[in-house]
């Protein structure tokens, strides 16, 4: 009886060690994957940061104005040409969406 108990517990011990070893390995693999993903995410965040700066640089009002003057046959809008829907004229309007803002969040 005693001997059986000993044998069973030894077997259980060996099995659990084996399982532990396997789980441990799997966890290590997942952690490595997580780290790689995190690094990837940070690289993307950084790339977004650079791209946002570049976008902001390329859409400088002065640059847009000079490009528009060169390529578009448009003139400045006169106040009388602007029509507002009722309740539309409320004040400063947010026309610009920050690029990549969603991704960064």
């Amino acid at each position, binding site marked *: 009886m005693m001997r059986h108990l000993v044998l069973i517990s030894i077997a259980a011990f060996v099995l659990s060690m084996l399982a*532990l*070893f396997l789980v*441990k390995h799997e966890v*290590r693999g997942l*952690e*490595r994957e997580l*780290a*790689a993903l*995190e*690094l990837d995410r*940070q*690289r993307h965040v*950084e790339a977004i*940061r*650079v791209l*946002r*700066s*570049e*976008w*902001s*640089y390329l*859409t*400088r*009002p*002065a640059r847009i*104005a000079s490009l528009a003057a060169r390529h578009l046959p448009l003139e*400045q*809008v*006169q*106040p*009388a040409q*602007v*029509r*507002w829907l009722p309740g*539309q*004229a*409320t*004040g*400063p*309007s*947010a*026309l*610009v*969406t*920050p690029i990549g*803002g969603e991704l960064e969040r």
Partner: protein
Amino acid sequence: MRDLAIRRWWRRDRSPLPPGETVAAASARLERARGRLLATGVLFLLCFGALIVRTLDVAVIGAPVGITGAGGVSALNPAARADIVDRNGVLLASNLPTHALYVEPGKIFDREDAIAALGRVFPDLDLERVASLIASDRKTALLRHNLTPEQAHAINRLGNPGLWLERQEQRFYPQGRLFAHVVGFTDVDNRGLAGVEKAVDAELRQRAEAQQGPLALSLDIRVQHVLAEALTETMTAHRALGAAGMVMDVETGELLALVSLPSFDPKGPDRSSAEQLFNRATLGTYELGSTFKPFTVAMALDRGIAGIEDSYDATQPIRVSRHLIRDHRPENRWLTVPEILIHSSNIAAARLAVEVGAERQKSFLDAFGMFDRIPFELSERGWPIVPRRWSEHTTMTVGFGHGLAVTPLHLIASYAALVNGGMAVTPTLLKQEPGAHLVQNRVISAETSAIMRMLLYTVVAEGTGKKAAVPGYLVGGKTGTAEKAIGGQYKRDSMITNFVGVFPIDRPRYAVLALMDEPKGTEETFGFATAGWTAAPVAGAVIERIAPLLGIPAAIERDESEEAPSIVWESAEGGRHASL
């Protein structure tokens, strides 16, 4: 004793006991041996126990596999300084990752080769300096800041063990000169040195640490661009030394634009002159001239000293001690209160100021904050220059805007209070929540404010501010032309011209200030360089372009029930008056 005998039997030990040893002595020896054995066993158990615990610790609990551990790649530090954006989220300042290049002379084997390679990567590098650095016995030396990604890549490809890169952050201002005076700049270690960067330095760092996202300013890049463009155009046309301009929300005190010209490149402030770095809008103090007259009128009306139909003698110049107070374009008659503003009469304004009295004048201007530095999100803030002795002559000159020098920021904030119903506003560069209630004190009554709006409207409709009129919009405002005091003398040909406009004047939302430093007359302005010709048109051009952007409908298409106020009517005597 029996124990020993049994053991001997068990081990089939037939050897005789050592000679001369009794069974008892042998038994005692055995006891000692057993004691030692036990001690040794416990010791081994402890050692193996420790080993097992440590093995479990390493294998099961284990050190976390950090980013640094995976594949030998290093962690990227998050930005150490928050971005700055305008009120619509357009980027004004950001941190970009760059590299700094270091050289470790001890690890460079072929010096000639390394120097030649560096010369290929950086054609502008001072190779002699590099050679002396490499020949020196220093451990490491910084070769260069802010490498471009291509340069960093080229250095990595060299594979020289004596050259290594360190990650750095560089502040980048995509809008360049446009926001130079407001946003400011930082040093190489990313510490704020000027502008908002300096004033809210700590908050920018703390925001980055807490990952709270960018800092939103009250500025609007579209308005800023329009204002800068209009000011630059006029400044060039009139060959002015400098210019300044602001657009302010008269209810919240938020600045939508703040421009000071000439501007500078925030990337290289050390290459800019003091003249360029100087912020004329918030640091420069000027005697602003006639733009002060509305305050004189407001204090007289608000304190019940004069009525709107009272008249003041402007028939001839006033002589006070050795000074002569004259009008720029004399009417040589008695002027009503609205006419004082329409014709911008120094003489009548001085008489009105004397009637108000020095004490009331001082307390009134003090309530508007004209004697203090304005609390504001810029470190470049000027102290007003207040006369030490407030004589009757001072009362007169301050009545038409001389003798007291304030910053343009003081002026626009005070105009906001004048027209917004009489509440003092605190200017701010930080975006406020819609409907945010800032601490506000009443400085004039709502009725006086209403009268002031109409008076300012008549100045643009009838008086010196005609060039600020915009078809479709109701604009009010006042011009100011002041001779600059240079070396204690007023110079007739060096002028500060300025204009503050408010629109729509019947329900004020925004105030616009334009200021020119020493503009010269041109052919188009018939040689005139006064504010009506140099500052008012800037405000008009700005209002025409920004009003639709800011969602202000033109008056011509307003709801029929809200008719535009009829303000000016001809009085029996032929003078013009404002009605309520």
